[in-house]
């Protein structure tokens, strides 16, 4: 299945791209997707998450699933889903 991942703000700088389409062999949860991305993009990417295991997301990271705020990382992704990684840090 294919999942679109979109990177905003510092995620964009770390990853070096605005978005990508990931082809996955099997269904994964949002948490599992984060672990895949952490493996792929290394320490700097991991450091953005307080809990590098990917089970929880802390701090000011905001994950959107098809535009809606995802607070449960156990949600199973479907083919064609769009996951956005951004921040809700203060400012503006």
């Amino acid at each position: 299945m294919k999942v679109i991942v979109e990177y905003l703000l510092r995620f964009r700088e770390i990853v070096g791209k605005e978005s990508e389409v990931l082809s996955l062999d099997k269904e994964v949860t949002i948490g599992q997707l984060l672990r895949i991305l952490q493996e792929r993009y290394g320490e700097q990417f991991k450091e953005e998450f307080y809990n590098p295991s990917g089970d929880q997301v802390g701090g000011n990271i905001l994950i959107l699933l098809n535009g809606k705020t995802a607070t449960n990382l156990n949600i199973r992704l479907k083919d064609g889903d769009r996951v956005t990684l951004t921040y809700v840090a203060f400012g503006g």
Partner: protein
Amino acid sequence: MVFKGYAGQILKIDLLTKGVVKEALTDSLIKGYIGGLGLAAKLYYDLVPPRIDPYDPANIVIFTTGPVQGTLIPGSGRGLFISKSPLTGRFFNSNLGGFIGPELKRAGYDAVVISGRAEKPVYIVIDDGSVEVRDASHLWGKTTYETHKVITEELGDPKFQVVCIGPAAENLVRFSAIIHPTPPECHAAGRGGIASVMASKNLKAIAVRGGKEVEVADRDGVISFFKEIAEKCRKHPFLPTYGTPGVLGTINKLGGLGTRNWQTEVFEGADKIRGETIMPKYKIADKACASCPMGCVKVTKVTEGKWAGTVVKGPEYETLYALGSMTGVDDFGAIARASRLCDEYGLDTISAGVVIAFAMEAFERGIISKEETEGLELRFGNGDALVEMVERIAFRKGWLGNLLAEGVARASQVIGCGSQYFAMHFKGLELAGHSPRAVKAWTLGYSVGWRGGSHHDARPHDIEYANPVEVRAFSTEGKAEIIYDTVLRVMIEESLITCRMYGGYYGVRTPSETHAKILKMVTGVEWNVEELVKTARRIRTLIRCLEVRDGFDIKDDLNAPPPRILYEPIPEGTSKGAYTSPKEFMIMLKRFYELAGWDLKTGIPKLEVLKELNLDYVVEDFKKLGILK
């Protein structure tokens, strides 16, 4: 004086007599009101009679600092202007960055109080102990950048920091801005039209140079605090790189970006104007205000199209919202050009954008004709029309330019035909770029704000953007508490005068231990959170009393939300269906009044609350005025 950090002096200038008086800042004023907004509210209460017109010479303009200006406390490169707003008719404060706040402190003053009206245009020169009121006839009519250039040349030292007004204020545009040019960029005390009050006093500019050191109680503590916060700033996910435009893409994805006069909250052109797009393409410099390790100031230059070569500060997120998504314009060049003109002429970009968006909707609905726009196709998305309207407003050109210069509330009353329904303001102040529908708490926050449509009277979005849509857009639970807490936090940060960009490091919700620590390190006097909360309550209550004294009460809060917010759901996007029904608004308002200790029927602070907060002088006055029995 036992407190460090302060200059210990208030400068009072009467422009009619050119009389200058220097008064001591007392310990009791500091303990009761801290500085900045708190101090200014107290001075304003004492010095200005109720119910006067903003353009009456008896109205005053206060330029104030807080205890931290001139120190290394991060985010202390601020200053605050206070007056009665010609836009809202209310007590009003407008905060600016740059360097002039700290400079005023170094010149030896905590605040400058300007009263009266000069017979002809003047500017004030504060050079340490020397204060001079000079002729400014040759500056009248000049843009802000030109004014800055002439003044620094005249004074022979570019170290003079200057704030000035432009042609928009001279033309008494009700949302004119005080500009602090620091070329190639500038900073602005933009909101509420205090620049026009300066113009009504024939005051073109204030130039300040100071050579004194600001003493702090715990020098090592302040230095170590600076390093600690600087390290956190380095990790901020967007402000150092993208500045405030960094939030635009995310807010659009959350379905809360005011678009085409809030007819929707998803802007299809957002990708073209968000920070991640414009900064890599157009940024020419990263800048910072005094004592700021964050450095969110960005300078951009348009590289292509009709407006190629335009250099502008930012534009900030709020400007990209007001001149961009609100007007449906996604051409960065046109937005940058309009923003630059606002800086040159001295206009508030938020109010300018909102009032132009209002006119665009009225034009598209056939309420304003092409004859009335003098041939201009005033449609959403028309960048040339946007730039043209900024010109017309600043110089009050034509019927429409002259009318829009009055602000959206007055303009909609004149235009009529139901246009009040889509006049997007709270209490006469055009709505800032944080949604009162996608973030329901904001409907309350703007409505109980003393300024109305300002995103700095409360700060619920700092908390609510993290919440799922069900919580932030479809629930009233706990919203009054968030608003009440963030209002108290704002009271402390506006009185210390620290930049709101540091809110998350100093306390995102309530007055915090960090605020107390800052005060202790700077002043040497112990403060605890409980005292800070009480002081914040005192300041907010006093400002409420300034509103009450001028005749405002619960009905003005009840009438604050624009009908579009109360009756029209967001039509699309992540926050689709969200609006704040009158019933939901009433639930939140009632709870806020309970928390603030305001009477549920009148909105006037209760007698026991005034006494608890040591506002006995207000009680006495209110009894004389018949407001309290």
